[in-house]
C-alpha cells in the first residue's frame, strides 16, 4: 500500500496529522502532542515511578492528566490502600485531576466529565481507553511508561496505523445489543489482522447507534486486537458530550482514503452472541448464544466499562421485569460504571427494583471484572458477564468459568438460572 503526501487520508491518519503538525500516512512514525491522558490505580503508581525515574519534577500539563481510582474500589487490603495513597499524594502535589474511589470507571469519567472532544488524541494507561473513539477521538491504551512520557513531555511517538473500515448495514433489532455486534466483529476479525490497525466504523447502522452503543464498540475494539476504534461525530455525539461546539473539530475520513481491509456486518440478521470460557490457554470462542442455551449459571455480572452504563442496566432490568425477577439460586452483582449512573438508577426508581430483586449493588468502578475487588466467583462456578474479557482467572478465580454476553442475555440467565436467549423472555 503506497500513499502520496497530500492524498486522501483515513480518520486515524488525519487525527495524527493534526497532532504532529504535518500530513502523515500509515507506516510512518511521528511525534504527536497529546490532548489528554488517563491512568487508573492499576497503572498510575508505576507511571509515577517512571515519571520520577525520567527526571520528572512537574507535569507538562496537569489539567490534561486524569487519575481515576477504579480498579480497587474499595481496596481489600492495606498494600492496595498504600498504592492509592501514593496517587493521592502525587495529585495533591502536581494539581492534576483525581477521581477518588466511588466516582466510577476512568473511561466512563473521561467521557462523562468532558475530558474528550471530537478530533482529540487521547491516551489512557488501560487497554479499554479505546472507548473514547466513540467521541471521534483517536484514543489508545498505553502502558505506564508511555503514560509517564506524556506526563513529562505532553507528547508521545506513534506509528501511524492502517485502518480497517467496518460498515454496519441495516438497523440493530430492538432485542439485540451493541455487545452482540462487538462479539460478532471479534468473531469475524482475526486478531493478527486487526493488530496495530484502527477500526473505523461507518454505515447507516453506525449512524443509528446511540452514543453508549458506539462507546461499547469502540471499547471492545481492543479485544478484537485493534489499536483504536473511531466513529464519526454527529449530533448524537455532541448531545451526549454536551459539547455543542464539538463538530467544529470533528474529523472525517477523506473520500478515496486507503484501507487495509473492509468488513461489513449486517445488523438486520444479527442474532445474540456469546463468548465461551477459554479452554487450555486458547482465545475464547464466540458462538451464537443459542448453541449454549440451558447451561446452568451461578453468578450474573452487570457492570464494567463495557456494560455498566445506564442504558445497559435499563436493558437488563427490562428483561428481569419481564421474567418476574431473578432466579433464587443466582447471585446477581450490579456495578454501575459511575456515581452518575448510580444516581440515575436511584432517580428513576431502578435502584429500588434491583435491590428488591436481591441484586448486590457494588461501588461504582471496575468491580468484579478483573478480580481485583467486588464479588469473586467460587470454584467450578459458572458466570455470565456483561464485561469484555473472560481470560482464565480474570474474575479472580481461575477455577470459575466466565461467559460473556449482552446485558439483556445476562439478565435472561439471571431470570432462568441458565443461559437463555433474551428474546424468549421479552
Amino acid at each position, binding site marked *: 500500500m503506497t500513499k502520496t503526501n497530500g492524498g486522501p487520508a483515513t480518520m486515524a491518519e488525519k487525527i495524527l496529522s493534526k497532532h504532529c503538525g504535518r500530513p502523515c500516512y500509515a507506516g510512518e*512514525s*511521528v*511525534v504527536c502532542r497529546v490532548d489528554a491522558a488517563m491512568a487508573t490505580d*492499576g*497503572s498510575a*503508581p*508505576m507511571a509515577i*515511578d*517512571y515519571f520520577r*525515574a*525520567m*527526571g520528572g519534577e512537574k507535569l507538562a500539563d496537569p489539567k490534561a492528566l486524569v487519575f481515576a481510582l477504579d*480498579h*480497587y474500589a474499595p*481496596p*481489600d*487490603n492495606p*498494600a*492496595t490502600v498504600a*498504592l492509592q495513597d501514593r496517587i493521592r499524594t502525587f495529585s495533591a502535589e502536581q494539581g492534576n485531576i483525581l477521581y477518588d474511589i466511588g466516582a466510577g470507571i476512568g473511561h466512563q469519567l473521561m467521557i462523562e466529565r468532558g475530558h474528550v472532544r471530537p478530533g482529540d488524541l487521547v491516551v489512557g*494507561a*488501560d*487497554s479499554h481507553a479505546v472507548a473514547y473513539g466513540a467521541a471521534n477521538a483517536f484514543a489508545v*491504551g*498505553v*502502558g*505506564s*511508561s*508511555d503514560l*509517564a*512520557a506524556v506526563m*513529562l*513531555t505532553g*507528547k*508521545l*511517538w506513534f*506509528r501511524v496505523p492502517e485502518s480497517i473500515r467496518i460498515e454496519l448495514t441495516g438497523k440493530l433489532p430492538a432485542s439485540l445489543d451493541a455487545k452482540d455486534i462487538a462479539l460478532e466483529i471479534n468473531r469475524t476479525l482475526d*486478531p*493478527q489482522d486487526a*493488530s*496495530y490497525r484502527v477500526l473505523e466504523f461507518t454505515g447507516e447502522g453506525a449512524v443509528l447507534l446511540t452514543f453508549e452503543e458506539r462507546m461499547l464498540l469502540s471499547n471492545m475494539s481492543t479485544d478484537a*486486537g485493534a*489499536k483504536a476504534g473511531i466513529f464519526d461525530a454527529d449530533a448524537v455525539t455532541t448531545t451526549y458530550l454536551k459539547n455543542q461546539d464539538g463538530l467544529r473539530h470533528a474529523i472525517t475520513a477523506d473520500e478515496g482514503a486507503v484501507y487495509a481491509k473492509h468488513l461489513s456486518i449486517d445488523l438486520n440478521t444479527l442474532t445474540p452472541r456469546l463468548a465461551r470460557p477459554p479452554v487450555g*490457554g*486458547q*482465545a475464547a470462542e464466540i458462538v451464537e448464544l443459542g448453541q449454549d442455551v440451558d447451561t446452568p449459571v451461578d453468578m450474573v455480572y452487570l457492570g464494567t466499562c463495557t456494560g455498566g452504563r445506564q442504558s445497559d442496566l435499563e436493558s437488563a432490568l427490562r428483561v428481569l421485569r419481564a421474567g418476574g425477577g431473578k432466579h433464587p439460586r443466582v447471585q446477581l452483582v450490579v456495578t454501575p460504571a459511575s456515581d452518575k449512573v448510580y444516581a440515575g438508577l436511584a432517580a428513576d426508581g431502578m435502584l429500588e427494583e434491583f435491590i428488591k430483586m436481591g441484586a448486590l449493588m457494588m461501588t461504582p468502578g471496575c468491580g468484579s471484572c*478483573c*478480580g*481485583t*475487588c467486588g464479588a469473586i466467583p467460587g470454584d467450578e462456578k459458572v458466570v455470565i458477564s456483561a464485561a469484555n*474479557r473472560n*481470560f*482464565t*482467572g*480474570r474474575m*479472580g478465580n*481461575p477455577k470459575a468459568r466466565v461467559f460473556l454476553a449482552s446485558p439483556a442475555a445476562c439478565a435472561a440467565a439471571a431470570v432462568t438460572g441458565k443461559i437463555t436467549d433474551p428474546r424468549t423472555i421479552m
Partner: protein
Amino acid sequence: MARADENAGDAAGAFTGAARLVGDDVNTDYIISSRRKRVTIDADALREFLFEDYDKNLGASIQPGEILVAGRNFGCGSAMEVAVTVVRAAGVPCVLAKSFARAYYRNAINNGLMPVICDTSTIDEGDRLEITMLDDGLNVINLTKDSPVETASFSPIIMDILNAGGITSYLRTHGDFPEAI
C-alpha cells in the same frame, strides 16, 4: 526501574539462550494475573507468579537468559506493564513471536525487553538461539537447527529507545522526543 536499564545492557553484542515455548494468544493475565498487582508492582516480588494461570511449571522453571518463543498475538489483553517487567525480572532478555499485541510491544521496548517479530513455527522447546543486535534490528540464528530465523526490523525510534536501555533512560538523557523521528 533501575533493573530494566541494567539488564538491557546485556542486549549489546551477541548472546545465546534456550527457547521456552508458549502458544498463541497468550494474554497479559496469563503472564501475570491482574489480581497480583493490587498488592505490589515490584517485578521481583511478582516473579514467583509468572504464568501461574497459564503454565505454573513453565513460570517456575524459566532461567535467566532463556528466550520466550511465542505464537501469534503475544501479550494481548490488558496494557498492564507488569506483564513486561515480570518477564524482565525472570531474566528473559528477548521475546520472539509471530506477532505481538500493540501495548505489549511498546511496553517491551520501553523496558528494554526486545520484542522480535518472526516466524517462530520452526523453533522447538530448548533450541539454542543466538541473538545479535544490529543497527536496525536483531539477527537470530537457531544453533540447534543450524538455520537463521528471519526477523522484522525496528524503526529508528525503537532502536534509539532500545539502545538507551528503555524509555526511562532515553527521556532522562534527551528530556523530550525530537520533532522528527
